[in-house]
């Protein structure tokens, strides 16, 4: 018996050990047709509206498109949520979609998958976060298909690159002139024009208006000096209150929001990126400029005077705003998140927003945001016809008018359709139901907040906002989060901030040699900069030696000029591509 048990145990252990080795997790191919029949939706042609012409679906009859994605389609939406929409796309185009979904560690699974035979790879892959380095590697390895080769069958994509977003075309044009990835979603603001994303979350300082008024500050501060006076007064009157919560575990980064007061270009997309192009198109490294010293001097003064707090996590900051222990901060949507809790502790307490501060002698500049979300790539599997079909599918699903509307409002015919002249016609009751979450997303695949590439025509957001406003007004039990004063305040602040936007600094595709140099040199440059900036703010390094201890080291020991020259070269190319 003992021998038998011993043998059994050993066999189980050995088999168990191998169980994870050879069994590549077979994706569970799902076709959109698997969606419940009750979700069947008429095409616009079926509902007799006669608007079917505006759909312009390509004929992909008999084609099978294999699509590899994460199972979380975009934030807050799973693949099953969007399946109804893709079922309709299948019906309209005649193609069959085979889904290959990955539940975790998507980038690693994708990289492993792409090492195999290209003919066995999916036709379309979600490239994960649009990281230029990774995409470069895929392109260099010949994995991705050049999208520009199929311009003749992808009019909407062509329009997107050439007319709507030449800036993005400039960014994503590879060094060989091809374009190899298609943005799946973008959150950005370009040259002061907000497109598809609310600015509220990104660029506002908030403060306790009730306390400010109590201390005699009737209106919001607009300059660095006014902020200093206000925070000092708060610190004196309420020593236990945190005057400004601005730091988190990423160190000094939050303090960078004040660089905009010194004419420096705070990069809202990436607070750790210091490169930007000035008004003359010259690439600069922000920390090495004299204005940085002024900003650091001010921040150090604030820190020494106990006006800013170091070392609190995001949760702690929100918690402090909600329980009334902090006076001000730089954080999105504090009104919505904390107002209610604050009222329970202090019924008179309320928040207002203030614009990014300025300072004498400098013009306020605030770099636009260009957060590239996921990208799609077409696998170059040697089958030209299949690659073109895959691109036609993406062109229709995401870049056509139908794609743009259905991304947000779900299947056509449920709550929206094309009007007689091709305009969007929305059923108010349907949008109301969406707002009140009465129609579950799975039923129609609607994702009203989706910021897909469709941001190029953000009229749908406007449409939604207008309708939402009307519905909210008509709902007797609806309690708006913001009071009228706060709404008016926000609109005012938003206008000031938006006017200060300047062009964002793009990301670049580089040659392998240049990328190598950048990777090697920027590692030390970033470490040194991070360390020194924090030391200057905390006062552990002397700002009197800013030039010799910091700027000179950047140029003499860390090859800053070489890095700037490389960035300049690619920025010039970007401008050419984008023009």
């Amino acid at each position, binding site marked *: 018996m003992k021998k038998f048990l011993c043998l059994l145990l050993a066999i189980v252990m050995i088999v168990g050990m191998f169980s994870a080795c050879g069994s590549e997790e077979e994706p569970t191919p799902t076709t959109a047709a698997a969606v419940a029949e009750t979700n069947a939706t008429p095409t616009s042609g079926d509902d007799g509206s006669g608007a079917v012409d505006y759909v312009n679906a390509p004929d992909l009859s008999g084609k099978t498109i294999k699509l590899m994605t994460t199972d979380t389609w975009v934030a807050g939406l799973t693949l099953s949520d969007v399946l109804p929409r893709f079922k309709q796309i299948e019906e309209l185009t005649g193609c069959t979609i085979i889904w290959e979904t990955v539940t975790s560690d998507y980038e690693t699974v994708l*990289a492993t998958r792409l090492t195999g035979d290209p003919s066995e790879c999916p036709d379309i892959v979600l490239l994960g976060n649009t990281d230029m380095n990774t995409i470069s590697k895929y392109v260099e390895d010949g994995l991705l298909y050049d999208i520009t080769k199929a311009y003749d069958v992808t009019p909407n994509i062509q329009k997107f690159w050439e007319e709507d977003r030449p800036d993005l075309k400039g960014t994503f044009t590879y060094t060989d002139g091809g374009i190899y990835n298609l943005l799946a979603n973008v959150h950005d603001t370009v040259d002061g024009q907000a497109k598809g994303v609310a600015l509220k979350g990104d660029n506002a300082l908030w403060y306790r208006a009730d306390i400010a008024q109590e201390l005699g500050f009737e209106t919001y501060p607009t300059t660095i000096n006014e902020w200093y006076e206000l925070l000092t007064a708060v610190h004196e009157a309420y020593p236990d209150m945190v005057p400004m919560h601005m730091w988190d575990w990423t160190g000094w980064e939050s303090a960078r929001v004040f660089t905009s007061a010194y004419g420096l270009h705070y990069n809202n997309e990436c607070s750790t990126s210091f490169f930007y192009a000035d008004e003359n198109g010259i690439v600069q490294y922000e920390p090495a400029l004299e204005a940085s010293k002024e900003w650091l001097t001010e921040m150090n003064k604030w820190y020494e005077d106990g006006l800013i707090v170091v070392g609190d996590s995001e949760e*702690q900051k929100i918690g402090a705003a909600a329980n009334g222990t902090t006076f001000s901060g730089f954080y999105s949507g504090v009104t919505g998140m904390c107002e209610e809790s604050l009222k329970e502790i202090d019924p008179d307490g309320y928040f207002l927003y203030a614009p990014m501060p300025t300072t004498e002698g400098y013009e306020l500049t605030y770099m636009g945001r260009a957060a590239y979300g996921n990208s799609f790539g077409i696998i170059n599997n040697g089958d030209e016809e299949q690659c073109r079909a895959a691109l036609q599918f993406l062109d229709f699903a995401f870049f056509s008018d139908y794609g743009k509307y259905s991304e947000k409002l779900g299947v056509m015919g449920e709550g929206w359709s094309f009007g007689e002249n091709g305009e969007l016609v929305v059923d108010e009751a349907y949008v109301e139901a969406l707002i009140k979450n009465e129609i579950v997303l799975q039923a129609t695949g609607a994702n009203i907040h989706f910021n897909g590439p469709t941001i190029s025509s953000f009229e749908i957001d406007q449409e939604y906002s207008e309708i939402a406003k009307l519905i909210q007004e008509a709902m007797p039990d609806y309690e708006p989060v913001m009071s009228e004063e706060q709404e008016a305040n926000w609109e005012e602040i938003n206008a000031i901030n938006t006017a200060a936007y300047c062009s964002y600094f793009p990301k670049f595709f580089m040659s392998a040699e240049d990328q190598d140099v950048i*990777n090697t040199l920027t590692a030390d440059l970033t*470490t040194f900069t991070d360390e020194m*900036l924090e030391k200057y703010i905390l006062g552990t390094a002397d700002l009197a030696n800013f030039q010799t201890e910091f700027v000179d080291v950047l140029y003499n020991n860390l090859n800053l000029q070489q890095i700037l020259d490389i960035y300049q070269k690619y920025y010039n190319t970007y401008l050419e591509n984008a023009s």
Partner: protein
Amino acid sequence: MKAIMKREKPKETRPMSPLRKGIRRDWQLILIGLPAVLCIFIFSYIPMGGVLYAFQDVSLRRTFWSNDWVGFKWFQQFFSSIYAGRVIKNTLILNFWMLLAGTTVEILLALTFNEVRNGKYKKFTQSCTYFPNFISTTVVVGMMINMLNPNTGVLSLLFQNVFGMEKIDLFAEPNAFRPMYVISAIWQGAGWGSIIYLGSINSIDQTLYEAAAIDGAGRLGRIRYITLPGMKSVIVICLIMHIGSMMSMGAGKILLMYSPSTYETADVISTFVYRQGLSSANYGYGAAVDLFNSACNLILLLVANWVAKKVSDVSMF
């Protein structure tokens, strides 16, 4: 008659080789050990071929042999960094403190448990020291951040209000990083780490203690002359193994704990490589630094083993 004939002509059998004999005799033990041997072979020996990536420009689409060979490029890249010396120094210092403080506390804990006579109390306290080992590092660091928050942290407020200390953010203080790292690691792992020492104590012959008691040895005497010498071989082996990983330091906990203001003392090889590797997805670079670490670890292990052999006659090989 037939029986007699058989005895006269015995069947010739070849003598069994010692190997076959051993297999026949110990096949159950061999079978039990087989999964572990296979595991080490598959997951530790076969991947060793991957060290060659340290000399290649790794590409996902190319095969292992068709990658471009780049010689010592990645090693040069690592050592050309102005921070190479600092991260190596920090790794060694942090490991030294972990070795010194960690091992000492584990041994002391094992000795203490061994001296507890009340069985229930002993089991309870042992369990209490083992529990932190099952808390994830992320949670432990989260607890530290909350407890040491200069404005709201329980410990910070205690230090300020009871001991009159200045309000200080320990997570932004370079000099506080190492003690915080080591103390939290001891809290989390000392109980679990003491098990091996406790095991070695349990294997000591009890009659030795009885004889020592008759000879008048007190508790400390018994620990000094019986327990510690009895644990010597395990302590030395653990020490050698720990020294053999002096150049390795996991990045996870440090990444959660450090910030630019503490890079000075907290940035170690693994975090440095993480920052650099993440920006460039450079597998060759990571492999090169790992190879360098492993080579240093091997040398340290051989030296430690040689010294241990000379000094105490106990060694791994």
